[in-house]
């Protein structure tokens, strides 16, 4: 999994002012629970999962997700947001092994 931490974020193309729209994202991540064993070696596979996802819009925090290993592999998250103005949506997320990533998306409100 060389691409751990890659994310795809999707927002609607056309958003009108005052509309509540959906932000969807998928992160490439194994989300290991720490309970599985390697089938060949019998060694336990260490826990490795996303534990924090933060959504910012124009530097204001919208939502914080605290997540654990019970979220499925390649996690999918969807939250909603009310459109007030155009701007940049920044999503910052990290995992329990020190991985840190950021993804930004332009949001245009008309």
């Amino acid at each position, binding site marked *: 999994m060389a691409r751990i931490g890659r994310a795809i974020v999707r927002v609607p193309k056309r958003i009108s002012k005052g509309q*509540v729209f959906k932000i969807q994202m998928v992160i490439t991540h194994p989300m290991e629970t720490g309970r599985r064993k390697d089938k060949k070696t019998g060694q336990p596979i260490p826990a490795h999962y996303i534990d924090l996802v933060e959504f910012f819009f124009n530097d204001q*925090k*919208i*939502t914080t997700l605290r997540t*654990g290993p019970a979220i*499925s592999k390649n996690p999918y998250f969807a939250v909603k*947001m009310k459109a007030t103005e155009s701007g940049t949506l920044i999503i910052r997320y990290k995992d329990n092994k020190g991985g840190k990533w950021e993804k930004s998306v332009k949001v245009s409100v008309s």
Partner: protein
Amino acid sequence: MISRRELLKFAAVGTIALTLVPGTLGEALAAPKDMSLEEALKEHLGATLSDLKESDLIHIKAPTIAESGANVPVQISANVPVDQVEALYIFADANFNPWVTTVEFSPLNGEVFFATRIKLAKTSKVRAVLKMKDGTLLAAAKEVKVTVGGCG
């Protein structure tokens, strides 16, 4: 080219590292303790099951029967103003650690809404708990039948 001396040095370091690792790693990897729903509620909400107020304002959208416990779509929405809500907690009763996720809202969200995909160890209830700003805990639950568990 690697000289013979260097190669030996690498080999020696490698052996030492290998013998040291199991001790420290073993401790760090000690299987996480199983937790009951009550324990998880106490840890995350400081509450017991009887503190949760059943509410039909919360809607949980999840399959009644899930083919695989590794990937169960769950969508939660609530008919309450988002500025009165502090956070949403999701629990899965029968998981090793029933706590799944915590979602902290802000008025910018516009609506109380969250969707994700979760792992379920076996057939159990999926619980959504809304922590309101006044301290009330609203809750709803939905039973999901799982044919194949998803927690290794």
